[in-house]
């Protein structure tokens, strides 16, 4: 069996994956394996915990539960479209986590959804995409 090419989809927002699912009919080929990487940013979560006056670890547990739920939901969506998919959740500094992941695993392409968000989420996502475009040796695709 031919080796599958790994396409990493890092995301911090479920809207991104919905946009990518809309593009999947054009993107998918049998030789590709998609890896959904849900990222949780600790700095953003710290700010949120202060604003909500909620314990950071408790908040992280809730965010991780929600993150896994979205991963399993989208895994089902991808599979229903006959798309080969894996799921991973990482939390910490988002840029470090992506670079760590790229070092750890054999990734051929990084796929992002175009960013329309403003505010802190929009900034984190823009930083993530810019960083990949400028510093990654992998092919980067934005849909």
């Amino acid at each position, binding site marked *: 069996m031919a080796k599958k090419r790994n396409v990493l989809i890092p995301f911090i927002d479920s809207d991104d994956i919905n946009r990518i699912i809309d593009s999947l009919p054009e993107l998918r080929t049998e030789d590709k394996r998609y890896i959904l990487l849900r990222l949780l940013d600790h700095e953003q979560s710290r700010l949120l915990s202060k604003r909500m006056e909620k314990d950071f670890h408790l908040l992280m547990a809730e965010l991780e539960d929600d993150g*896994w*739920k979205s991963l399993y939901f989208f895994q089902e969506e991808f*599979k229903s479209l006959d*798309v080969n998919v894996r799921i991973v959740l990482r939390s910490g500094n988002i840029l470090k986590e992506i670079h760590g992941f790229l070092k*750890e695993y054999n990734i051929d392409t990084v796929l992002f959804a175009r960013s329309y968000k403003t505010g802190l989420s929009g900034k984190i996502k823009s930083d993530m995409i810019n960083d990949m475009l400028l510093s990654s040796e992998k092919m980067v695709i934005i849909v």
Partner: protein
Amino acid sequence: MIKELLKSDSIIMELKGNSKEAVLMEFIEYGNGLGLISNNDEFFNKILELENLGSSALEKGIAIPHLRDNFVSEMFLLLGISHGGVDFDSIDSQPSKLIFFIGAKKNDKMYLPLLSRISRMCSYGEIRDDLLSADSPDDIIGIISEWEI
């Protein structure tokens, strides 16, 4: 949530199968023996089809094969341990040692929360180690109950 579903008799302390297919069938036959699964072949074919579209293995020796379909009468959870590990084609190439097996009805609302809770629990190395070194199903239920408080 996990502790409500996982009973002493839902835990296989040492899986016999040494391949993904053998372990999936072992779970199905075990579930059939508990009255949780009635159509073994249909269950096997569907869950294997899902596995082929993307392994249910996570990183660090965890796998959670799962199926929701209308022929499943009610949600169930089984846990099997393979100390030697089984190749579930995980992304980090580690053999799966803690394997949770879930069946649920198509629209079961607890399905995603359960998958999510197990995934988060197993992201903690200490919990994984404790579960792998447990001596009995009751020990395992104790570890999970304590974590879920």
